[in-house]
């Protein structure tokens, strides 16, 4: 049998959410796969001759993260991000698989665009797995459904009009029904457009003091309520993206209790559980995101929903924009912030270190949770499985002075966060290595 070079990761603490365990172990990697997992049980490591050894004492070794909500800007807005720069950002953040949203220009709503994006994504497969979420309606305009069957056949992982909700409730229902027959799902962005009308940030204390039009919290709840009612009468699976309010998570919690647990899932984003509307005062447009940063009450409610399992996953909603676009001021600047590189550190800094959840739960929300939403087998740390890992120091701080992303619209720019990524492995290859750690 042909033998590739051996790589041994020595001294790390394995975080394995699929098995719900943490243990110290050395991992041997060969031919892109996990060859052996040797639990050390306080014994010193035994390194094998002829093996490259990577010492990671004090670091955590977890399955590479899955980010199910990413905006790459190719095609159409390559000045903000390309598949290539997005892949670089992903590996720096420890992300091994990402699902890209269809709000490109043109939207991913037909075979031709799908194949183009697929090819661009494939070009990055040495670094990261890129999967495509296709649009529910043509141009994401809400009027004409796309050919879900055809797009699914091409490989679309899920369907979403993200950036906007699926406007027509009847189309949403038909899409839920149809995707159920294709083992796929619909991902909805919850926002009742008629309640927004030019709003730029959360409608509340800050919007009033700055005199900026606000986005009311009800805008999200109304849409979540609609979606749950539609889901009830359909056959499909629905995933609600980036929930930001107390009311929204409460609606999901109730719906799951009332029999929808198998068909309804939701995600939250790091910025929503880490920051409040107050961030807008310091950061201005860098803190302008949709849904907007909310209040302390909402942040607390998101924490509770994360603790009690109402929330199924953490996703970045990585949304790059160039400096000149973000510098247009609060009203004119586009919504969104990048997040691939800071997703893990923000989660550790704001959820794990304050003791809200354990590191194991955090990794679960970043790996097995997303996998379950997509109805995929959870990434496992076992011989024979692909060697896709993120290796990071949970207790070390990094100050984010630059990003691999083509854009740098992050409120965490210049800030120190815990949870520094040391290395990312993809199919056994070290695709990122932080030389300064």
């Amino acid at each position: 049998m042909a033998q590739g070079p051996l790589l041994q990761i020595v001294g790390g603490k394995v975080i394995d959410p699929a098995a719900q365990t943490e243990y110290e172990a050395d991992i041997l990697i060969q031919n892109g796969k996990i060859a052996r997992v040797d639990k050390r049980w306080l014994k010193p490591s035994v390194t094998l001759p002829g093996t490259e050894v990577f010492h990671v004492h004090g670091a955590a070794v977890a399955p590479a993260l899955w980010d199910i909500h990413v905006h790459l800007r190719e095609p159409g807005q390559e000045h903000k991000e390309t598949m290539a720069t997005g892949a670089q950002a992903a590996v720096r953040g420890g992300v091994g698989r990402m699902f890209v949203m269809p709000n490109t220009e043109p939207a991913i709503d037909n075979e031709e665009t799908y194949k183009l994006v697929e090819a661009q994504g494939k070009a990055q497969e040495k670094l990261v797995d890129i999967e495509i979420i296709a649009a529910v309606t043509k141009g994401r305009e809400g009027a004409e459904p796309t050919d879900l069957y055809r797009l699914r056949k091409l490989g679309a992982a899920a369907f979403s009009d993200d950036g906007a909700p699926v406007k027509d409730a009847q189309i949403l229902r038909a899409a839920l029904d149809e995707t159920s027959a294709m083992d796929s799902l619909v991902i909805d962005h919850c926002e009742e457009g008629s309640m927004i009308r030019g709003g730029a940030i959360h409608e509340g204390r800050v919007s009033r003091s700055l005199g900026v039009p606000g986005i009311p919290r009800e805008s999200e709840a109304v849409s979540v309520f609609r979606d749950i009612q539609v889901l009830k009468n359909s056959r499909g699976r629905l995933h609600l993206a980036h929930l930001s309010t107390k009311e929204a998570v409460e609606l999901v919690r109730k719906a799951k209790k009332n029999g929808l647990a198998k068909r309804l899932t939701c995600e939250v984003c790091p910025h929503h559980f880490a920051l409040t509307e107050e961030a807008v005062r310091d950061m201005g447009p860098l803190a302008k995101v949709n849904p907007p940063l909310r209040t302390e009450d909402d942040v607390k409610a998101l924490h509770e929903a994360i603790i009690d399992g109402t929330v199924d996953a953490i996703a970045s909603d990585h949304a790059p924009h160039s400096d000149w676009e973000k510098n247009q001021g609060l009203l004119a600047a586009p919504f969104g912030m990048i997040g691939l590189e800071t997703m893990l550190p923000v989660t550790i800094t704001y959820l794990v270190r304050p003791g809200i959840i354990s590191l194991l739960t955090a990794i679960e929300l970043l790996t097995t949770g997303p996998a379950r939403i997509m109805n995929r087998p959870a990434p496992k740390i076992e011989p024979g499985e692909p060697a896709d890992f993120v290796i990071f120091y949970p207790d070390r701080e990094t100050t984010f002075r630059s990003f691999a992303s083509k854009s740098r619209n992050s409120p965490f720019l210049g800030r120190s966060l815990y949870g520094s990524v040391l290395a990312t492995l993809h199919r056994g290859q070290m695709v990122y290595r932080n030389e300064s750690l």
Partner: protein
Amino acid sequence: MMAPRLASEKRPVKKAAKSTAPSRHLLTSAELPKVWVEALFDEARRFKTAEKAGHPWSEDLKGQHVGLLFFEPSTRTRASFHIAAKRLGADPVTVEIAFSSVQKGESLEDTVMTMEAMGCHFLIIRHGEALSGQRAARVAKKAHIINAGDGSHEHPTQALLDTFTVLERRGSLAGGTVLFLGDILFSRVARSNIELLKTLGVKNVIVSGPPSLMPSEEELESWGISYVPELNKALAQADVVHVLRVQLERHGQKMPMTPGSYREAWGLTEERLVKFCKKDVLIFHPGPMNVGVEIDREVADGPHSCVLDQVANGVFIRMAILKRLHQAC
């Protein structure tokens, strides 16, 4: 002035006892007594044998007028009733609704009463709204009302001719599985057929097709039928397959699938027929067909297809219906 109808008709509808003969109307296949259906099939068989033997047509309905009130276009059903009436010696009267006073605001009830006043003994009604047959029956004083399709609700004469054709080809349906494939949600053909099959004691009725064109689980359960989402599995079980006409757009709502995708996902293709269906499967389609969408040309014209039998038997069944309703009172 309209006389108020009998008080009994205003009571909540109770299922009629299945042993009694139906009323003078044929509005739904849900409440047809089994013995009535069997007698009807005997009658249809006699007409068919007589035709084959070259006997002259009977004159059972001589002097009668049969009004064809088609508020929706339908070449096939209308022609079938027209020929059936002619063969029984009656005079068919077709009302072109598009040019009629209905366009000027006359109601269905007005039209029915007018036609009856002119001497129509039968009124065959095709209408876009559910329960329009019942509405007509409420105002008709003596005429027989026959529902020739009311909205997405029922199409009892189609169900009768379908079932007659199945029995003719197969002898018995006991133990067999009947599959309805496609748009069940909006199909009056499926609804009427399923009711009739239940009356005749067929236990295994299944449906398959796009999830967005299926009734809710509750509704399917109330019908006592099950949804088999994997088409190939559904086909493998079926002794009879009713392929239904699909409309990818309804009430301005498009379903998230193009004709090409529909064929690939849910169409009864030649390949599926060969690969998954029983060797002696019977294929039905009520027409008009979207050839190359819900059914392939090779299947529609192939040896398993009963489509032309359906059309031919339709005339005999409708003759038998006219004759038996006439005899009933």
